[in-house]
């Protein structure tokens, strides 16, 4: 969208023509202003060239395209939350069915696709179906962008046929950073269960990744080497989901809050062995019981990390501290002052008033610091049990 926004706009025009839609919207997150500038300009240019507007190139087909900037809410990527947001509301998911294709934007049939999907349409039309299906595997056809980031020599975007392996991708990207080994990675972003070296040769297609217990998802491959603390990584991901939870349903809203509390405790060295089991139980109360996939996704990294790195969680408890040197993971030397104790020390460093202010805003002011959440978590588990379709059937 930054370098070649016209590929997307061409895709929008073709797909809109295919479904006979006369108005398309490109919903872009608001936190990337230069991308938005270029999209606005590209759409204007497309109108000026007659590729958009009334009676496009004499075809009798009309198409308007509106580029819409969001305002900072990850959940608005979820297709029905996106529709509510585009209607000028809080971006909270809708009950499905009805699916957007039946009743979407303004209750009219709507197709929602990822921009990469839409931008790949012109090349498929241009080169033909056989060209596209020659790439990929039997059931996962075509190509996609694999985004490699983290402790890799040459991070970046690698477009490749589905079914490529991480080992092959790493060959292109110069391998894991020098002197280190791969420890864990996400095949499809932070909402997909983590992999380790054991999956270096797993074909990255939908079926094979699924068979290994994860999901291909966004193809955002985040790679972490042996210096990285898995508890720290998982804690930070969970804080993200807590922040981005839209608050509509109880398991996700309350659950991500308590998961964060427990994880911070373990990471900070004040957790107990029971906390590790409590984490899994709480994940169990969220996954499959949330209103949308954000809640499920929030538990993926936790459950998989505890399964694959149980001893590391236990070590934090036994040691009463994180056994890793965070500075060793960074791309540069840490400053002279002692290393940060994230994120507790961080909040403590802020002026008293600011901390209180923040707590009040997030609605957390009611929770005393020394409350470990046992009662709230059991209430959450009870809620999940009572609302579990399986429990109802048994009863």
């Amino acid at each position: 969208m930054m370098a070649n926004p016209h590929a997307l706009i061409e895709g929008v025009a073709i797909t809109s023509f295919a479904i006979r839609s006369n108005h398309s919207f490109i919903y872009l997150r608001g936190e990337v202003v230069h991308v938005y500038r270029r999209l606005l300009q590209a759409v204007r240019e497309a109108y000026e060239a007659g590729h958009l507007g009334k009676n496009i190139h004499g075809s009798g087909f009309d198409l308007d395209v509106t580029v819409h900037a969001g305002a900072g809410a990850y959940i608005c990527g979820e297709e029905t939350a996106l529709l509510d947001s585009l209607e000028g509301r809080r971006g909270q998911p809708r009950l499905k069915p009805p699916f957007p294709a039946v009743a979407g934007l303004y209750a009219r049939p709507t197709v929602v696709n990822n921009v990469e999907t839409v931008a790949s349409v012109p090349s498929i039309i241009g080169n033909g179906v056989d060209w596209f299906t020659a790439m990929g595997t039997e059931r996962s056809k075509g190509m996609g962008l694999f985004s490699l980031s983290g402790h890799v020599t040459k991070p970046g975007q690698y477009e490749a046929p589905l079914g490529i392996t991480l080992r092959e991708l790493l060959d292109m990207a110069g391998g894991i950073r020098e002197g280190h080994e791969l420890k864990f990675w996400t095949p499809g972003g932070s909402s997909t269960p983590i992999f380790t070296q054991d999956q270096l040769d797993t074909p990255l297609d939908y079926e094979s990744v699924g068979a290994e217990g994860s999901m291909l998802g966004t193809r955002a491959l985040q790679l972490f080497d042996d210096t990285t603390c898995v508890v720290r990584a998982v804690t930070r991901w969970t804080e993200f989901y807590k922040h981005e939870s839209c608050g509509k349903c109880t398991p996700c809203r309350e659950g991500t809050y308590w998961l964060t509390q427990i994880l911070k405790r373990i990471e900070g060295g004040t957790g107990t062995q029971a906390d590790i089991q409590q984490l899994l139980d709480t994940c169990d109360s969220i996954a499959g019981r949330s209103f949308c996939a954000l809640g499920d996704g929030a538990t993926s990294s936790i459950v998989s990390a505890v399964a694959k790195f149980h001893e590391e969680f236990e070590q934090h408890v036994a040691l009463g501290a994180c056994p890793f040197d965070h500075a060793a993971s960074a791309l540069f030397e840490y400053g002279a002052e002692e290393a940060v104790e994230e994120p507790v020390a961080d909040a403590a460093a802020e002026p008293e008033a600011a901390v209180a202010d923040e707590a009040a805003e997030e609605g957390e002011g009611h929770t005393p610091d020394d409350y470990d959440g046992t009662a709230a978590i059991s209430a959450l588990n009870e809620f999940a049990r009572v609302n579990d379709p399986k429990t109802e059937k048994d009863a």
Partner: protein
Amino acid sequence: MTYDSATLEQLAKDADDIVSRYPVPRSALLPMLHLVQSVDGYVSPDGIAFCAKRLDLTSAEVSAVATFYTQYKRRPNGEYQVGVCTNTLCAVMGGDEIWRRVSERAGVGHDETTADGKITLERLECNAACDYAPVMMVNWEFFDNMTPESALQLVDDILDGKDVHPTRGADTVADFKSVSRVLAGFEDGRADEGGLAGEPTLAGLKVAKERGWTGESK
């Protein structure tokens, strides 16, 4: 509302432009909130009243929407919104240390503004630029591959009133109000500034060219 008549006239004109982009007026609410931020530097009570009146909503309905999204500010914002990504990938690659140093230098914490009104500091959630980690953003322009030194220089330059230059973006970072106007959908003529794409974005393409790969042959 306390807007003077010239401001109100311009706001009304811009709001008409925004509303005309959508089949249903209420869809204009998000861009209109960006618009009022471009005038007031935050979503002010006046701004809420203006949106409510124009879209025939109650001010409670408008507030409910405005408070859902983190980009809408409830207090007058600094001239520069400075964000340090402290999500997992960036944090591990050094974002935590950058945050600590930047926060120390600016003398403010998350969601706080310096006394001179220059900087509002923020711990950023992922900005989908992980291949450029550690990442910072100033008024939603990318500052890639940061180090504590480059981050402190950036903060000092802003506090000294100097122009700052994103790695991928316009030549210089526009102030918070100007950027809010762009986000309301009004072009500022700066789309052609800056390069096309950074090195990581083209990494795969480079390998393919070096090895003579094309889509057909694989």
